[in-house]
């Protein structure tokens, strides 16, 4: 690699060619403030906060987008630069609702931090901000245009990473705004509610719809028996919300914290993930042996289901009829659990903690009700909302004693643990399907080719002497490639796993802020280390799952299973 010599703030440095000034400066511990810049996303150079002075150039240049050149002399902190930066942030603030103390992003807002860093004690420019309507028309995502600073991150994610193109920049000049198509609400617009926009928003303009109040109300209601399930991807990310290092596994402390919050029982969605593998695995075997519709596609991810129902209604019969683990758990919590405990289902309040915003929408679906009068899952919290509740309660997370999950939904396997990462559902399914079909133990449980952040991954497995191809896609733009093959009848696969978010649930729209590919990889590593550390690593070996079938469900794909654990999908592609 060719090296380039330059001077930054009078320090002579040498960096690889094509490095940007921003990265070069960072490498030598000179931090240039940024705002629209977000690791792994397109460089937009819109906010102009990262401008620096380059000798010989009349204007200032944005360091995020300008590559270094030999002999370049850069000043990142000249009076001219500092004044420009300050003015730019003042201008942003002049068109922003600055009621910071009542903002959901207070103390974790990138704009607020920047204003503080630059020492903006007063704004020379009078406010020109005009109040607009907040979009609260869906269960998942709230969009508050009054806080939007037009950095373009959300539009980039929605259009380029997900390919969903729901968010757009409308208008021009001072009237530019980020909006859903036709300037309508998200709910009118094929939004998959993946929440990736919320996850990259530097301010409070796009956030999950906050359900913590509903949960607090239930927790303080003496008549309610409040139970909670926690998704696999939460235990490797919640730590970031409570001051731990990225990738820290916090399972035991998390359970303990939730007990302190007042949940009567703390269960593990991993249990339902194991159950999903039994049902979905058997569905796959049935489709393969009975000449059913192939390839079969996974159904755990609600963002993907929203995507398929709105964009690919013609391939819905490819999607497994299995409910997602969240909803399998919900159905059991409102049927099997009351039967076992004698508690009136009407008094049971089911909360999920999910890495996901689309799960909030999923829980509200009409199909997801054992009793048509109330949803199986009453409230869904994101990882961030759980973190918020832990802070509200003043819990000293770090010094908690670890606690185990409660029975009867507490024992889990390594197969379920990896559900939260791209390729994990597929790997878990193979571990079971292989052994069920081939009637012999699988040698080597790790499917390395299905792991990692590559957009589309493939593997081949031997099922009953026949080599079968499977594929895994994450992000909806990658999913689109596989969906088009299915639509055209050219898909070479028997089974396809799709997760909406980059990296899978560990990169979900409800996960702690600051998710980048580096962070994703850390969470993924923790996930696989959890799997490796577990004594049970195959879903069909989960004793609680075996007991559930024995006591209650009787057999996979049986009558009761169909009633409780399976669902159906709807064509929602009509736009007018």
């Amino acid at each position, binding site marked *: 690699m060719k090296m380039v010599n330059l001077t930054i703030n009078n320090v002579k440095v040498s960096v690889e060619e094509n490095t940007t000034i921003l990265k070069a400066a960072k490498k030598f511990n000179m931090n240039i403030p940024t705002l629209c810049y977000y690791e792994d996303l397109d460089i937009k150079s819109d906010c102009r906060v990262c401008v620096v002075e380059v000798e010989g150039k009349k204007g200032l240049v944005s360091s995020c987008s300008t590559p270094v050149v030999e002999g370049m002399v850069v000043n990142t902190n000249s009076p001219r630069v500092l004044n420009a930066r300050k003015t730019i942030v003042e201008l942003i603030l002049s068109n922003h609702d600055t009621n910071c103390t009542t903002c959901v992003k207070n103390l974790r807002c990138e704009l607020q931090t920047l204003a503080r860093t630059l020492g903006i004690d007063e704004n020379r420019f009078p406010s020109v901000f005009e109040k607009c309507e907040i979009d609260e028309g869906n269960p998942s995502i709230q969009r508050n245009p009054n806080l939007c600073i037009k950095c373009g991150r959300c539009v980039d994610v929605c*259009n380029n990473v997900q390919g969903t*193109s*729901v*968010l*757009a*920049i*409308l*208008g*021009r000049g001072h009237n530019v705004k980020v909006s859903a*198509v*036709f*300037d309508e609400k998200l709910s009118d617009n094929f939004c998959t509610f993946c929440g990736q926009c919320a996850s990259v928003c530097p301010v409070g303009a796009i956030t999950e719809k906050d359900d913590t109040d509903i949960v607090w109300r239930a927790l303080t209601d003496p008549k309610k028996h409040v139970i909670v399930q926690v998704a696999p991807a939460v235990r490797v990310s919640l730590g970031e919300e409570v001051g731990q290092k990225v990738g820290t596994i916090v399972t035991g402390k998390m359970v303990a914290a939730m007990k302190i919050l007042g949940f009567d029982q703390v269960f593990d969605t991993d249990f339902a993930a194991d159950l999903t593998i039994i049902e979905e695995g058997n569905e796959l075997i049935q489709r393969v042996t009975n000449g059913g519709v192939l390839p079969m596609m996974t159904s755990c991810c609600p963002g993907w289901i929203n995507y398929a129902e709105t964009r690919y209604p013609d391939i819905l019969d490819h999607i497994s009829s299995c409910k997602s683990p969240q909803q399998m758990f919900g159905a059991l919590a409102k049927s099997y659990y009351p039967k076992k405990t004698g508690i009136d289902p009407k008094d049971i309040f089911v909360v999920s903690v999910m890495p996901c915003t689309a799960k909030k929408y999923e829980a509200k679906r009409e199909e997801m009700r054992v009793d048509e009068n109330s949803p199986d899952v009453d409230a869904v919290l994101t990882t961030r909302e759980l973190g918020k509740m832990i802070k509200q309660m003043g819990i000293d997370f770090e010094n908690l004693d670890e606690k185990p999950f409660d029975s009867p939904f507490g024992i889990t396997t390594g197969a379920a643990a990896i559900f939260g990462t791209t390729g994990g559902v597929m790997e878990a399914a193979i571990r079971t399907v292989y052994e069920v079909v081939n009637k012999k133990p699988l040698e080597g449980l790790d499917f390395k080719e299905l792991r990692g952040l590559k957009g589309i991954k493939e593997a081949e497995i031997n099922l009953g002497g026949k080599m079968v191809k499977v594929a895994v896609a994450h992000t909806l733009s990658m999913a689109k490639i596989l969906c088009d093959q299915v639509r055209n009848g050219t898909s070479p696969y028997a089974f396809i796993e799709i997760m909406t978010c980059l990296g899978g649930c560990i990169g979900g729209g409800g996960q702690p802020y600051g998710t980048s590919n580096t962070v994703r990889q850390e969470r993924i590593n923790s996930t696989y280390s959890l799997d490796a550390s577990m004594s049970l690593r195959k879903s069909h070996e989960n004793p609680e799952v075996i007991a559930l079938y024995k006591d209650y469900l009787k057999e996979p794909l049986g009558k009761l299973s169909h009633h409780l654990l399976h669902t159906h999908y709807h064509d929602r592609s009509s*736009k*007018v």
Partner: protein
Amino acid sequence: MILKEILQKYPKKDDQLIEILLDYQSAKSNHYISKEEIIEIADYLGIPESKVCSVLSFYTFFSVKPRGKHIIQVCKDVPCYVSSNIDILKIIETELGILVNETTPNQQFTLEFTSCLGCCDVGPVMRINDKIYTHLTADKIKAILSEYRVNM
């Protein structure tokens, strides 16, 4: 019907979007693109509707709300401003009984501002649909408008 005919003239390439929108909008007597039409155009070109919406909202020629049969655009920039001592806009507003960015109740006229029309040597100017009227005076404006009214 007519949109389909217009679409067929253009290759299914996303760089044709602006040309299609201009062509179709001027063919419509109310000079706007509806939601249904946005969907149809996006579908034809194989692009997301959000892209069509972004384009429509960026360029001043386009409207997503119905406008009058005749769109009157008045230049508001410096060369036209110093070329005359009459208030062109006010005269038209009074004459039509509407304010800028409004449409007459009979859907005949919409009044808008425009940026410089590049006719600074013959200002003040206004544009009605594709035709530019120069050296405007109060009398001239009245005469032009009554001509449009006669031809209704």
